[in-house]
């Protein structure tokens, strides 16, 4: 928004009682030098006497940080986070449990048992690696493809299912579409559908947390498509100018529904935008859970200590369809998808790593698959059996209190149902 308002302000404020220097946090240099040195307040730079446009570097972009190769071998021992066995096993189990839940809920949508679903195939490593590097009380803002963060924090399968079914156990009271999870106790802010809106919000939370001196940070996840929204620009810029302890975590999986990144941007991905905002930035291999972990761990350490934002772009590939309302074979090849599923997958890579250490074998894999499937199926069946919440819950929480006009509308619906109840699916809902 440009405001050409100077003249108007003068009319209303004939003699503004302020000194110009008060308004500037960043002190300008004094005008004492007569040297041919730039004095512009907007940038700190030298003059140049040749005409030269700065070229974007997109052929050889920001390199992709990697800790282990596709066979699960540590490439540079000094970068090995050397996590204990129990923690690595937890990584693996969270990722595979999420994968199992994805498969079952995806199928349940195909059978019309839930209305909608979005899988996390191929991006499990970005969720678990980053979540593990955070403190449990760090506040998480997400987009919708970060269920692994909740999984890692121990969100019960029952509640994932309750949300997708909108049953009476759903803490969200069945109001939002499936996969719009939220958990106050696990510091995971409720997901909403409008893309990128959470980005400047996360910055505001980080600012408030900085004022609390609580040694916490905020992490904010978003896809590379969402990064095209105006709110992404707003969030990055506010975080830098207001010095907020936040990690921006971009999942660059190559597609925003059907739109390939070549139609999303022409710069060097998202990571290359960070420095333009004065934000420390890094690009990591999103299929390498240790690379994600290391980058998040260090970004967190510095964000807390220095009160400044960090940007992590995790390169990955969206193996599944965008959602259950999408058939991705309409815009990309099966071979492309198969490559990432079979040759370069975060789960199989971590399994190689664990096998290399003797921490995992075929037998354990078999047992765990069976067990995780059983757990998911039990939660699934229980969720399906439950009633939906009382329809009157439609009217609460619009405001903290229920205003008179909404009370009247609720009473009106109650009267209506008394007379016409047989035309509504009342049997499926709690009374």
């Amino acid at each position, binding site marked *: 928004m440009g405001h050409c308002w100077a003249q*108007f302000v003068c009319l*209303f404020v004939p003699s503004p009682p302020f000194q110009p220097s008060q308004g500037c946090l960043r002190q300008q240099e004094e005008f004492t030098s007569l040297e041919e040195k730039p004095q512009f307040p907007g940038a700190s730079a030298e003059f140049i006497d040749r005409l030269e446009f700065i070229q974007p570097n997109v052929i050889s972009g920001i390199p992709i940080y990697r800790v282990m190769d596709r066979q699960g071998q540590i490439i540079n021992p000094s970068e090995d986070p050397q996590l204990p066995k129990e923690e690595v096993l937890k990584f693996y189990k969270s990722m595979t449990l999420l994968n199992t839940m994805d498969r079952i809920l995806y199928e349940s949508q195909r059978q019309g048992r839930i209305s909608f679903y979005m899988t996390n195939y191929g991006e499990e490593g970005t969720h678990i690696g980053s979540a593990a590097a955070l403190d449990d009380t760090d506040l998480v803002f997400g987009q919708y493809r970060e269920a692994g963060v909740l999984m890692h924090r121990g969100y019960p399968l029952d509640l994932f299912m309750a949300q997708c079914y909108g049953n009476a156990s759903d803490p969200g009271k069945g*109001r939002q579409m499936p996969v719009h999870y939220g958990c106050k106790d696990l510091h995971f802010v409720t997901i909403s559908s409008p893309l990128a809106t959470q980005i400047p919000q996360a910055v*505001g939370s980080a600012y408030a947390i900085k004022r609390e001196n609580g040694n916490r940070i905020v992490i904010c996840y978003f896809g590379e498509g969402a990064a095209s929204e105006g709110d992404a620009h707003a969030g990055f810029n506010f975080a830098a100018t207001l010095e907020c302890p936040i990690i921006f975590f971009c999942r660059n999986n190559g597609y925003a529904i059907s739109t390939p990144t070549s139609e999303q941007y022409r710069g060097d991905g998202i990571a290359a935008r960070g420095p333009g905002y004065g934000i420390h930035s890094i690009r990591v291999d999103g299929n390498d859970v240790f690379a994600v972990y290391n980058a998040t761990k260090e970004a967190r350490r510095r964000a807390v200590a220095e009160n400044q934002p960090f940007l992590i772009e995790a390169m990955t590939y969206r193996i599944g369809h965008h959602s259950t309302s999408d058939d991705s074979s309409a815009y990309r090849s099966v071979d492309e998808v198969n490559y990432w599923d079979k040759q370069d997958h975060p789960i199989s890579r971590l399994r190689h790593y664990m096998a290399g250490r003797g921490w995992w074998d075929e037998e354990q894999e078999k047992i765990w698959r069976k067990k995780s499937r059983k757990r998911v199926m039990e939660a699934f069946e229980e969720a399906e059996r439950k009633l939906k919440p009382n329809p009157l819950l439609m009217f609460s929480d619009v405001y903290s209190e229920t205003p008179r006009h909404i009370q009247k509308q609720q009473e009106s619906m109650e009267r209506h149902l008394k007379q016409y109840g047989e035309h509504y699916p009342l049997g499926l809902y709690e009374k």
Partner: protein
Amino acid sequence: MAVVGAVLRRAAVSRPRLRFAGGAPPRRHAAHFTFQADPEPTQYGPTQKMNLFQSITSALDNALSRDPTAVIFGEDVSFGGVFRCTVGLRDKYGKDRVFNTPLCEQGIVGFGIGIAVTGATAIAEIQFADYIFPAFDQIVNEAAKYRYRSGDLFNCGSLTIRAPWGCVGHGALYHSQSPEAFFAHCPGLKIVVPRGPVEAKGLLLSCIEDKNPCIFFEPKILYRAAVENVPVEPYYIPLSQADVLQGGSDVTLVAWGTQVHVMKEVAVMAQEKLGVSCEVIDLKTILPWDTETVCKSVAKTGRLLISHEAPVTGGFAAEISSTVQEECFLNLEAPISRVCGYDTPFPHIFEPFYIPDKWKCYDALRKMINY
């Protein structure tokens, strides 16, 4: 009239002097309203003469002083704001509590929501209500729906958005708008417009402490023009309660913001010229609005005229009119009359012809009385 005149004269002085062949230079059109001060409130302790911008500062001062989590931010608020509403607050409370943001309205509101999500009090300023639209998505899809969609796990109830509002004589398309009706269609928000300094402080403090996201529109033409004795200590005027400013028996007049003062003049004109007794109501809160006070009045008078600066089609008068018609059908003796801005953008040089001034309101009232 005297105070408004002073402002306009000062405005004229600050302009370059031009010579006019025809003799006297053309004068700006006089203000379309006469501000009428409220009686001095005595129940809240000592008062001070304050204009509207000073009473806003006083409310913000009280809020920051009582609530260590409260912060104020927006474009140019740090040096005191382009309308002087935040003068002195940065020096008194620190630059981490009163600070400038980058120039980006969607960022300001998103950022404010984020602060409120942690439970801290966020007071965001949008420089002109005209520039609130880039934040429409954050307000309508996010702020308004935060509590509902999360099942009350999260909320942004401690967010207040303040914005200068309404016509100002020469603000044209983008410094004159009254966008309250756009927001009135959005469950989850509260929308408040005060008519003067005493109202402004009490209502703003209520907005800041209310557990819901509030939009507080400040009639910018009153910033300097309106002066009242305002209590120095904090006090609260309840939201969703309209005020009957003047009792009457023949017709109900409803307005908010500056237009309340126009209505008061119309009531005097109606009494003098037509012998008609008007009941004048300041609605104050647009959402959720005080249906009962308005309907009770119309049930008594049998006639209703609603007036606002915003365009008529889809304006909030339509909501009031329709509700009153449903609730008071047997009492209504004439069609409900809406005197509003025309369905055009807000023009520059045509402003005197655009606004629903006292003559337009008076004429509509006269016809309604004769119905």
